[in-house]
């Protein structure tokens, strides 16, 4: 696999406006009751007057070692040539093993297709046309940065090489490809 698509969510820049979730919903036609992407505003943390919130992007982490792919009995959950974890809806029987196995709880059963569903970085639509994922395009504060981390010249590669980032639940060995830049108190410096 020559490409390694990653997404960086800069929690410093994020303002929790939900524009990304709305764009995702409209791009992917996600049914009303479910979501591929949420940005949860958690907190406040700390003591007044130094309160702060945490902006937690909740979406598929595109694990390099993806539990949802390992457990899927039919191979409906698979890793594509581009390394992205996707779902072949017509191969899915709806056993929900992957939904149970995903440590980030971001997989769900689509009430319309009855198949498992989740974020795939807009692989079939926008990426296929050479565009950025919908959430990245629409973010008003440029809190989302996306690209091929195997290309040393890409913005994401430079970013994860120079900034302190973290990933969620790395102790489970899933190797998530969503990186987060933690909030630095006292405003943005960049």
């Amino acid at each position, binding site marked *: 696999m020559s490409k390694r698509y990653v997404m960086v969510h800069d929690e410093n820049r994020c303002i*929790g406006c*939900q524009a990304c*979730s709305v764009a995702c919903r409209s791009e992917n036609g996600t049914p009303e*009751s*479910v*979501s591929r992407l*949420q*940005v*949860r*505003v958690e907190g406040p943390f700390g003591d007044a007057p130094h309160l702060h919130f945490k902006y937690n992007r*909740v979406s598929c982490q595109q694990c390099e070692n993806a*539990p949802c792919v*390992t*457990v*899927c*009995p*039919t*191979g*409906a959950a698979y890793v594509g040539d581009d390394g992205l974890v996707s779902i072949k809806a017509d*191969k*899915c*029987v*709806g*056993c*929900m*093993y992957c*939904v*149970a*196995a*995903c*440590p980030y*709880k971001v997989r*769900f*059963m689509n009430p319309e297709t*009855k*198949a498992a569903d989740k974020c795939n970085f807009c692989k079939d639509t926008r990426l296929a046309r050479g565009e950025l994922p919908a959430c990245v395009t629409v973010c008003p504060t440029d809190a989302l940065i996306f690209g091929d981390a195997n290309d040393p010249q890409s913005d994401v590669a430079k970013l994860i090489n120079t900034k302190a980032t973290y990933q969620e*639940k790395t*102790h*489970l*060995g899933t190797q998530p490809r969503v990186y987060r830049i933690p909030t630095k108190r006292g405003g943005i410096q960049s």
Partner: protein
Amino acid sequence: MNNTWGDMAQYDPVTWNWIIAVYLFMAGLSAGSILIGIGLRWYSKDKSVESAILKAAAIISPVAISLGLACLVFDLTKPFHFWLILINYNLSSVMSIGVLALLAYSPIGIAYSLIVLRDELPKWKLGFLVPLAHALQPFRKAIEVVLFVLAIGVGAYTGFLISAMNAYPMLNTAVLPALFLVSGLSAGAAANAIGALVMFNTSSHDATLGKMHGLELPVMLSEMMFLFMLFCALYFKGGAAAAALASLTIGVWASVFWIGVVGIGFAIPLLSMLMPAQTRHTKGVMIAVACCSLTGVLALRHFVLYAGQSYIS
């Protein structure tokens, strides 16, 4: 909905519900029942007659696995596409391996049942199956051995299925398959006793029934030991795993554990062993105690599945 980011319903960590608990119970019961039936046959000296226990197992085992599989199929979001799972295999998935095991286990189990029940079939208007039973007869030994091995696989598989998920510390432990296998044995023994007493009118002093009773105490003790090991493992792992131990003290699953698993499943059968032999060996008491064991095992499946999924690392 009173947050800005939307509905949280899909993020409930409990994905698999009671239907799956019933399936896990049925698969364990089926495997346990036939393992005990075959085991006792190998152990007994007179192999020419089919014991009431084996005949009961020959009915219970295929019926239980069929009911369990029906639960499984109708719990799929696309039940009418279940064949997809039969033609696509992913050998890194425990579920796929289980499908392969069940694909062999179910028909072989039915073949074995026909052999065991060959003299009963005409009574149930299934006389047309007798020639098939006789045709299978020469392969009895081979079928028996293969079925025994597959039953161990199916019994343990129910534990492997849910222990393969590292998101849940209470499920992701190595003792779970062993715990499910032995609790399947105790369910199987209880169901066989009920079947033998009710369907085949066995005397409650029957020798095979007595031998099966002898197995109950060691099976129950190993069940308790595996449970203890499971909780110890969680405790020593610390972090999210240790937090999962809270399921023993708070919430509805704590009641299911203490009342269902410990009270009904362990305490009543153990205390019944203290009863005077005459009372203990009456049909009514034996059936009641067996029902308690079955309830305990069903409660254990529910507890493990729900409490296990409620705590995520």
